[in-house]
């Protein structure tokens, strides 16, 4: 069992039950998702009932219980982005990848997530792909962007 990583996390956050969200945020950062066995451990160490841990993990958008894809595409669905046409290209990209928001493509390449507002409203519609902001997005531009990332990882896997 890899409890070592968890112990390291708990050393910085402390073991008070009020630190649960902070601990889960660190776990999410370390593992890229919240693995079940780690959550069971968290429950024991922080002395928080297991159902509470499970509830918190399901309630907040920052947490996922399934492993996420290689590339994370975050589409801002804020009001400003909405009136400038964000829903159009969200549907388009979901169709292109064949998934729903929050899901990961079968090949584990892309995870598409929506966010309520990134606070970059003046530049909308905005998407974030692997931490990089793309402003004034359109359905066509996004399609090309995804294709570019697809090709890039294809090439890389061929090299290997």
């Amino acid at each position, binding site marked *: 069992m890899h409890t070592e990583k968890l112990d390291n996390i708990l050393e910085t956050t402390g073991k008070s039950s009020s630190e649960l969200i902070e601990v889960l945020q660190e776990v999410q950062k370390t593992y890229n998702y919240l693995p079940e066995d780690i959550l069971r451990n968290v429950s024991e160490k922080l002395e928080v009932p297991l159902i509470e841990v499970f509830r918190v993990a399901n*309630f907040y958008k920052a947490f996922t219980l399934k492993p996420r894809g290689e590339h994370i595409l975050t589409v801002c669905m804020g009001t400003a982005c909405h009136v400038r046409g964000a829903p159009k290209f969200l549907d388009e990209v979901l169709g292109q990848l064949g998934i729903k928001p929050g899901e990961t493509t079968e090949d584990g390449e892309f995870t598409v997530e929506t966010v309520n507002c990134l606070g970059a409203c003046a530049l909308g519609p905005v998407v974030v792909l692997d931490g990089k902001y793309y402003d004034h997005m359109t359905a066509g531009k996004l399609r090309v962007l995804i294709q570019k990332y697809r090709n890039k990882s294809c090439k890389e896997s061929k090299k290997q």
Partner: protein
Amino acid sequence: MNEYVTLTINGSKVKTPQGTSVLDAALSYGICIPHLCHMPGISPIGACRLCIVEVVKNGKSKVTTSCTLEVEEGMVILAHTERILKARKNIAEMLVAEAPNSRAIQDIALRCGVKEVRYPFRNKDCVLCGRCVRICAETWQSKSLGFVGRGSERHVALPFDKRPEFCKQCNDCINVCPMTITPCPGPMKKGEEFFCGLCESQLSMAENIVDTCVDCRLGEGFNCLRAKNK
């Protein structure tokens, strides 16, 4: 020694121990306020909102649930104003459309005056009253299940959807569920969304409520003729 406070509910003076909820105080005096998620001796969550009342303070009225409201000296409560009755009826209508199979909920809807359900049926088997969740946590200290997710995704679940070893299998969660009190015999099929009439609480009989009262524990204190006649 309990300290007592006096308050007014629907114009009647009511004397009740401190720390009581307005709902319990009303019920103990036979003043009928409908409720679903409330259970005696279990902490209230104010989720079903059926027991809403108006609290009048400094000439202003505020709507809140009577189950979560603690009695105060001199409090003025109006439980059956037109505004409250209308909202309550609409909530009951929503509930019965969520789970038309539940006899308990049909009963509540009838007593709140629902005669027609304008929303399409959803045939769910849970209305998230949280009776199971609280009885497990509070009576048995087990915390084997809880509300998971949010918005329309919210549901009652076990941790990681597996029964934990500390569940005592007491079955209380099932016993207190409004869906399991003499449930309707068959789930409704698509396209056949009407009350089947196999249980007595069918909507067409709303006028004859006295004969159809099922005396379910949930119904205690509802605004039904039977209670008035007693």
